[in-house]
C-alpha cells in the first residue's frame, strides 16, 4: 500500500515536470544495443567486449565491480535519497549508433535535432575547438579543428583514447581517483563509457575552450562518463561541459568521474553547468592534482537534478601550486544540492580560493560541504573560503559544513567567511521604483548575487545562466 501511494505521487510529480521543464523533449529511442537492467560481472564483461578493450581495462572494471558491490553507501550527505537509488533498475550501457560520426553529415538526423534544440552547431561556429558530443553512452560526433591537431593536442572521447593512445591512458587513468575511493567512483570504474580525453603537450596554450555536451536520452539509463585531462608542463587548457536532460518518469543516475592532472607550471580550467531534469541523481567525483607552480580551476554550476553530491577537489602537490573552486548551486522545489569543494595543501607556499554561492527556493535545500586541509610542511600556504547563501523564501533551507584541518602553522593563513541572506526588500523597492517589475527585480538581484561566478563563464553560458534564473523567477509567481 505504501509503495503504491508513493508510485502514484512520483507519477504526478513527473507529469507536472514534463510540462514544466524547458528541455524536456526527447527523441524516439533508436538505440542499437541495450544492455539489461542491473550490473553484474556479465554486464561488465559485455561492455568491455563490445568496446574491444585490452585485458587490463577488463581487469580494472572487474576489480572495480567487486569494490562497488562490497562498499557501503556514504553515511553522510543526503543519506535518505541515496538509499532510494535502485541500482538493479538501471541500464548500465546503451550504445546509440554503431559508429562515430566523423563530420556533421554523418550524424543521424534525430540526434542532430536534439543538438539543434540545444543550439550546439551555432556554439561550434562561434568558438568550438573541437566537439565531443556524448549522446547516450557513446560519442557520436567528434571533430578537432586543424589548428588543434597542429598543436599536438589530443582531444577525443575516452573510448577512442584507450584505442589510439593506450600508453598515455594507462599511465594516468584512475591515478587520481582509484576505484576504491568511494562507492560511486567504483561504480563508474566498472561501468564507464564515453567522456572526454585531453592531452596538451608541454608549452602549449590552447587558446580556445574545448567543449563537450552530454545528454541522457534513454529511460532509466545511468550515464557513467569518464573524463581525463592532462596538461603537460607549462601548458594551458580550458575545458567546458554543459548538460541538459529530458524528463522521464523514473529516476536516472548520473555518476561521472573526472580526473585533471596539471603538471609543473600548467593551467587547467574546467567549467561545468549542469541542468539535469529534477529526477536525476547526480553523484560525481571530480578531482585534480596540481604540481609545482601549476594552477587548477573548477568553475561548477549546479542548477537541476533531484540530488547532486559533488565536491570538486584539488590536491596542491607541488610548491607554489594554486587551486580555485568557484561554484553555484540552485535548489528549487524537491531538489537537494549538496555541493562544495575540497582542497589539500600538500606542499609549501600553495594557495587556494573557494567561492561558493547557493540559492534555495520553494522548499529547495542547498548545502555547502567543504574541506580545506593544510598538511604539516605546507608552510606559507594561504587559503580563502567564502560561502554565500541566498534564501528566496522562508520554506527553503541552506546549510554550511566547512571543515578545516590545519597541521602547519608556519606562515599559514586561513580565512573563512559565510553569509546567509534573503532578497532585500529595499533592493526590490529601489529597482521597482525604476519601472522594473518585482519578478524582474528579483532576477536582477539574484543574478547580481551569482555575478562573481557568472563573469568567469564564456559569454553564451553566462547569458543562458542569467536567462535560466530569470525564467525560474517568473515561475515563482503565485
Amino acid at each position: 500500500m505504501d509503495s503504491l501511494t508513493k508510485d502514484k505521487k512520483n507519477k504526478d510529480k513527473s507529469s507536472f515536470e514534463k510540462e514544466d521543464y524547458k528541455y524536456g523533449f526527447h527523441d524516439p529511442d533508436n538505440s542499437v544495443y541495450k544492455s539489461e537492467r542491473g550490473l553484474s560481472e556479465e554486464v561488465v564483461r559485455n561492455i568491455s567486449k563490445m568496446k574491444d578493450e585490452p585485458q587490463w581495462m577488463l581487469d580494472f572494471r572487474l576489480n572495480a565491480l567487486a569494490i562497488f558491490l562490497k562498499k557501503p553507501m556514504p553515511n553522510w550527505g543526503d543519506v535518505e535519497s541515496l538509499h532510494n537509488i535502485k541500482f538493479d533498475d538501471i541500464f548500465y550501457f546503451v550504445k546509440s549508433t554503431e559508429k562515430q560520426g566523423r563530420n556533421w553529415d554523418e550524424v543521424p538526423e534525430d540526434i542532430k535535432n536534439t543538438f539543434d534544440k540545444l543550439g550546439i552547431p551555432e556554439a561550434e561556429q562561434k568558438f568550438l575547438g573541437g566537439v565531443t558530443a556524448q549522446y547516450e553512452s557513446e560519442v557520436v560526433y567528434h571533430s578537432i579543428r586543424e589548428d588543434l591537431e597542429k598543436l599536438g593536442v589530443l582531444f577525443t572521447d575516452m573510448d577512442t583514447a584507450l584505442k589510439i593512445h593506450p600508453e598515455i591512458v594507462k599511465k594516468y587513468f584512475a591515478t587520481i581517483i582509484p576505484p576504491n575511493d568511494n562507492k560511486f567512483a567504483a561504480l563508474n570504474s566498472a561501468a564507464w563509457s564515453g567522456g572526454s580525453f585531453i592531452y596538451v603537450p608541454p608549452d602549449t596554450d590552447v587558446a580556445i575552450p574545448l567543449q563537450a555536451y552530454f545528454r541522457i536520452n534513454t529511460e532509466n539509463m545511468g550515464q557513467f562518463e569518464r573524463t581525463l585531462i592532462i596538461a603537460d608542463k607549462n601548458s594551458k587548457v580550458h575545458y567546458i561541459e554543459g548538460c541538459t536532460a529530458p524528463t522521464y518518469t523514473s529516476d536516472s543516475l548520473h555518476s561521472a568521474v573526472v580526473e585533471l592532472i596539471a603538471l609543473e607550471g600548467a593551467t587547467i580550467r574546467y567549467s561545468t553547468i549542469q541542468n539535469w531534469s529534477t529526477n536525476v541523481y547526480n553523484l560525481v567525483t571530480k578531482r585534480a592534482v596540481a604540481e609545482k607552480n601549476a594552477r587548477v580551476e573548477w568553475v561548477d554550476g549546479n542548477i537541476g537534478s533531484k540530488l547532486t553530491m559533488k565536491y570538486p577537489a584539488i590536491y596542491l602537490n607541488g610548491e607554489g601550486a594554486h587551486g580555485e573552486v568557484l561554484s553555484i548551486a540552485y535548489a528549487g522545489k524537491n531538489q537537494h544540492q549538496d555541493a562544495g569543494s575540497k582542497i589539500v595543501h600538500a606542499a609549501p607556499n600553495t594557495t587556494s580560493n573557494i567561492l561558493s554561492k547557493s540559492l534555495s527556493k520553494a522548499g529547495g535545500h542547498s548545502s555547502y560541504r567543504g574541506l580545506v586541509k593544510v598538511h604539516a610542511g605546507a608552510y606559507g600556504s594561504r587559503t580563502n573560503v567564502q560561502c554565500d547563501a541566498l534564501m528566496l523564501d522562508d520554506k527553503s533551507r541552506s546549510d554550511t559544513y566547512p571543515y578545516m584541518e590545519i597541521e602547519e602553522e608556519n606562515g599559514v593563513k586561513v580565512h573563512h567567511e559565510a553569509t546567509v541572506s534573503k532578497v532585500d526588500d529595499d533592493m526590490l523597492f529601489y529597482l521597482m521604483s525604476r519601472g522594473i517589475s518585482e519578478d524582474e527585480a528579483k532576477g536582477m538581484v539574484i543574478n547580481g548575487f551569482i555575478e562573481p561566478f557568472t563573469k568567469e563563464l564564456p559569454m553564451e553560458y553566462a547569458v543562458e545562466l542569467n536567462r535560466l534564473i530569470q525564467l525560474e523567477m517568473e515561475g515563482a509567481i503565485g
Partner: protein
Amino acid sequence: MSENVLLEITNLHAEYVNNQEDNESIKILNGINLVIEQGKTHAIMGPNGSGKSTLSAVLMGHPAYKITEGEIRFKNPESGQLESILELEPHERARLGMFLSFQSPVSIPGLPVSLFLRNSLKNIRGKDIPVREFRKELKENLSALEMNPELTKRYLNEGFSGGEKKRMEILQLSLIKPALAILDEIDSGLDIDALRQVSNGINRLVDANRSFVLITHYKRLLEYVKPDKVHILSKGRIIKEGGNELVETLEKDGYEAFVKAAEVA
C-alpha cells in the same frame, strides 16, 4: 486649474508597519493635503522626524507603509485624468511618470550600472532601446552631469562615495525624464562642487511639463533650484505654505517658530 494638476494628495494618513506579524505600527503621516501642478517646483521642508522621507516613500508605494486614510491621485498620461494610484505597485507608478531619488540609495552587488539603466529605461518607455542608441544617450547625460563614465561599468552604487550615489540618482532622473521627480534630500552629504553639479543636473530638466518635489532640510539647494512653492512639514502634517520667501523666514527664525505658531492655531 485642475487641468494642470499632476498630483493630488488628500487627507493622507500613513503608518510604518514595524512588525507585520504583530501588527505593530507607528503613525507617521497625519492628514497631508498637497497639490502639485505640472511644471512647478515644490519644496517640502521640515525638521527631522517630520515625515518627509515617509511621504516620498509612500508616494512611490513602499510596501513597509500602510495608508490608513486618504487618497493619492496622479494624472494618467494616456487619459489625462487624475486617477488613484493607491493600488499600484511601485513599478507601475514609475511607468506612469513618477520618480523617486533616494536619500540613501541601496547598492546592489553584481548588478552592472549600464545593465540596470537599460532595463529600467526599457520598462519605463515600454520598448527596447538599441545598444548604440542607449550608449549615445548615456554618454551625453554623463558628460552633461560631469560624471566619470567609468561609474557605469561598476556595480550599482557598490563602493560609491556619497556624492557618486547622488549623482547616479540624477543620472537616472535625466535618462528617465519623469513627469514628477521627488528628490529626497538630494543635497545631503554633498560638498559645494557636487551640490552645484547636482543642481545643474536638476535645472537642465526643469520645464513646463515636469514637476519637482524637493525634500530638504536646508536652503542651500533652494539657492540653486528655485521653488515655486514651499511647504513646511511637522509631525506628519503641512503646517505652513508659501512662496520662495518662506525659505528666508525659515532660515532666520528656524522651524521652532512655525511649529509653535501651528500649535497655537
